[in-house]
């Protein structure tokens, strides 16, 4: 079975707010797929629905062809990073990974391998409460990689990382996809995914605005994308950002006055 993530008409409402609205897409193996959209677009909700944490009001989500809740050994099939602080502050980094390994019968050596992989071997015996945000983010990534899964889902993985950390995670995402895994990464900043994502799912107000390759977005495919700069050599970041802003303009929750609408911060 191919490593895939599928959303099929996924819908989630919170009271009268529709956070995710009939979302359908497939994340293919062997490439990095970016899930991008403004704050409040429904990225995190989408990921929780894919992972069986939230129940959809309509539609279905499947990982490797099955709903997450039916996976026999989930950590071997899907690795997920949702929230960097999702550890007990009093627990040592190694013990956090150890209880996870026990829950899926993973050999304890995987714990040490995962710590090594994210560069936390030195602090394995320190309590995670004393970790910086970047270190906690690395611990969360180690947790995702623990079961060596063919599918990876990362929610805003570069949050809180320093430039070196950002470079590291970009390389990691590329190499994971290079090994044939399906990698889904969310970000509210398209530029964070530039040069990392092969494919983009752009969402706004819970709806899918574009399901496109980075190149196609630059060439101006999709509704109302700004194609003017597309001819610029090597697709400069300003043109990609402009295309993205154009696409999501009507879908941002909070908009400053015109004076604040400078596309390039």
């Amino acid at each position, binding site marked *: *079975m191919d*490593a895939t993530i599928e959303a099929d008409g996924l819908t989630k409402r919170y009271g009268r707010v529709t956070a995710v609205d009939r979302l359908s897409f497939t994340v293919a193996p062997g490439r990095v797929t970016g899930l991008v959209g403004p704050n409040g677009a429904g990225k995190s909700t989408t990921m*929780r629905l894919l*992972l*069986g*944490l*939230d*129940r959809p009001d309509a539609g279905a989500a499947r990982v*490797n*062809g*099955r709903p*997450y*809740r039916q*996976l*026999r*050994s*989930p*950590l*071997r*099939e*899907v690795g*997920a990073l*949702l*929230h960097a*602080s*999702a*550890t*007990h*502050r*009093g*627990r*040592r980094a190694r*013990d*956090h990974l*150890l*209880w*996870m390994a*026990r*829950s*899926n*019968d*993973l050999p304890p050596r995987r714990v040490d391998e995962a710590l090594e992989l994210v560069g936390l071997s030195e602090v394995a015996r320190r309590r995670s409460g004393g970790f910086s945000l970047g270190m906690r983010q690395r611990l969360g990534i180690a*947790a995702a990689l623990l079961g060596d899964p*063919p599918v990876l889902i990362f929610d805003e993985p570069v949050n809180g990382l320093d430039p070196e950390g950002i470079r590291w995670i970009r390389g990691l995402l590329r190499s994971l996809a290079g090994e044939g895994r399906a990698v889904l990464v969310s970000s509210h900043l398209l530029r964070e995914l530039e040069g990392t994502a092969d494919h983009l799912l752009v969402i706004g107000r819970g709806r899918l605005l574009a399901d496109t390759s980075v190149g196609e977005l630059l060439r101006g495919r999709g509704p109302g994308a700004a194609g003017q700069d597309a001819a610029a050599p090597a697709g400069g970041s300003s043109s990609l950002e402009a295309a993205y802003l154009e696409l999501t303009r009507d879908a941002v929750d909070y908009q400053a006055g015109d004076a604040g609408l400078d596309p390039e911060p």
Partner: protein
Amino acid sequence: MSAGWRGPRAGAVQALRAEWTKLRSVPASGWAAVATVGLTVLLSAFVCGSVSTRGGDPAHPGDEDVVMLSLSGVYLSQIAVVALAVTAVTSEYASGMIRVSFLANPRRRVVLAAKAAVVGAAVLAAGLVASLLSFSAGQPILAGNGFTAANGYPPTSLADPAALRAVAGSAVYLALLALLSVGAGAVLRHAAGAITTVLGLLFVPLVALSFLPERLWEPVQRFAPMTAGLAVQSTAGSLELIAGRSARPVGPWAGLGILAAWAAAALLLAFALVERRDA
């Protein structure tokens, strides 16, 4: 890659091992165990040291329950047990780790049942140590305060079935209280609310006795979790005598059964909610 019907899985045994690893890897668990044992022994010893046979009713020699007196520290240490068991669940909700737990094993009832089993077993063990030490420390203190055969108090030991029941039953009481607390924590998902709720269930009926009409005393004591559960500490002699005054209207095992029903109700509600709610 994706597992077929064979091969490893995230099942109940794995969930138990994971929950045990979680419990033993935070310092709070050790402190809670120390607090449970320490508070039980200290308060029990204090109570034993502060009672005397003087001033008792001379018409009723031996009407103090010496076994119960030596286990009275449970009234205090149960608070530590409630705090430990509630936060074993609510700390996961507070940090967001509950999502990692449900990712590792999406069969949420299995995860919750494993947590309840591990916390309950740990509290049972700590409770046994606490009640054995309290009983052993309390009897000589009481003897020194005049609770001797000459005054109608023959020495008791664990060879006495009633004393053994009271000592072991105190540990079972704490373990059942831990299960009730795990259930309350999983239903309410916030430490302050869940601890307040459980302590309220324990102590409000006791306070209410002071203003409720006398005809309600018996049903309240029979069905309130603490007064019912701690009936297991009564030893046979005192049971008859106090039952004559209708102060202990439920038998020792029946009382534990009522506490067990409270714990089962809380856990069943938690099981029903945990699958339905978003994590």
